[in-house]
């Protein structure tokens, strides 16, 4: 087996909000095409870790290495880094004043300077791909939650990122709409996208995840392939958490 490329590497990452220490000595490695699933109780620091990876939060110390380059907030152009690291949020955060297609072509045109014609072509392709080929000119307020989240995924993909971060992408959805979003994410994973996903959908973690990371109180407690974590957890805390979920 050939050694696959390292996409994200985190070493001894620490992060506090004021007096509240949220992440302790986090180490993490994500290889190309890996789907890494972060699980853990609410408040354990999953979102903060994810947000450190695209510098929406700035770490206190430790190293964050993105595609081989150690990134520091004060020396790097974070806008450049973020172009390569897409993010999908729990509450979609679509731009309400722009149509579905407008949402998708905004960043490619404004940030990358791609022509409107090109951006529209690619935007339509992505929207077709996520099953929204009939919604180009609709405003987000007219969409269901599941449709909104799929637009958000297309919007992130339009920047052609090498890594995608998902922060509880289905937690705000009605149960009957969860499936369509997970399906889209699964396809993306199967196509080889490198993904870090925070989710409570254990079925997805098991089926799509290459690695599952269990976090508690700002620390990584256990890392392993899904069957190990779900069927033979080594740590008591992991067991207790999984018992509480299932």
């Amino acid at each position, binding site marked *: 087996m050939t050694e696959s490329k390292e996409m994200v590497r985190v070493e001894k990452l620490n992060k506090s909000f004021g007096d509240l220490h949220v992440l302790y000595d986090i180490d993490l490695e994500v290889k190309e095409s890996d789907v890494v699933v972060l699980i853990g109780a609410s408040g354990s620091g999953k979102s903060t870790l994810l947000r450190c990876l695209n510098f929406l939060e700035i770490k206190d110390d430790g190293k964050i290495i993105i595609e081989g380059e150690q990134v520091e907030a004060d020396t790097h152009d974070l806008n450049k880094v973020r172009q390569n*690291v897409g*993010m999908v949020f729990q509450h979609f955060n679509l731009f309400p004043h722009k149509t579905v297609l407008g949402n998708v072509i905004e960043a490619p045109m*404004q*940030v990358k300077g791609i022509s409107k014609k090109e951006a529209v072509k690619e935007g339509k392709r992505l929207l077709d791909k996520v099953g929204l080929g009939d919604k180009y000119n609709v405003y987000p307020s007219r969409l269901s939650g599941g449709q909104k989240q799929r637009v958000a995924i297309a919007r*992130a993909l339009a*920047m052609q990122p090498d890594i995608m971060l998902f922060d509880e992408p289905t937690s705000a959805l009605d149960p009957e709409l969860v499936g369509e979003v997970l399906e889209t994410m699964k396809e993306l994973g199967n196509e080889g996208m490198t993904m870090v996903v925070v989710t409570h959908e254990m079925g997805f973690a098991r089926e799509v995840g290459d690695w599952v990371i269990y976090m508690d109180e700002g620390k990584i407690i256990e890392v392993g392939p899904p069957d190990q974590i779900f069927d033979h957890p080594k740590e008591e805390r992991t067991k207790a958490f999984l018992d509480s979920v299932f």
Partner: protein
Amino acid sequence: MVEFFDIFIGSTDVFIEGLWLTLRLSVVSLLIAIVIGLFIAMLKISNIKILEWIADGYIWIVRGTPLIVQIFILYYGLAEVWLIPSFWAAGIGLAFHSGAYIAEIIRGSIQSIAKGQREAARSLGMNRSLTMRRIILPQAFRRAVPALGNQFIIGIKDSSLASFIGLQELFGVSNTMGSNSFNYLPYFFTVAVYYLVIVLILTIGVNMLEKKLAVSD
């Protein structure tokens, strides 16, 4: 009553001239006020203490003094160093005044836009200024339309103070005609009608704009 109608109709040509001046004064001052308001709002949300203080100081001075005093200071005070035409003394005075209120309106509406909008834009690689221009401000302006419309109405009525430095805008015209004829009241009723009609048209315009901007809701 008959006298009022006679005066209303008989005086249209002078009042139309006054109306024209009122509109010019209002439009010029409101345009400058929007620029000032936007600028001061940016200072206020800059997170840079010294800039916030400058903005706060400006707003404090404008809100803490009567508009007529501001206009007089500009007109008589600045005239010592640099002769400023009364149109511009009034226009700039009104702009500085409205600018402070518009700044607060814009700042409030910017801060009412959910933090997730900024984060989504930044996560796509948009820098601060792109995020502000393309994502935050368009939404903030939409939200600010009713309050801005209100401020414009106040601005138009406030422009009547320009008559105190000799401008024959609507109110100035009514005052002059009243004193020339020793019969103030019908002229003041007349001018009131003019203001009411302007405000009515503006209100309808703002409502239409609100409806048009609501297509995305």
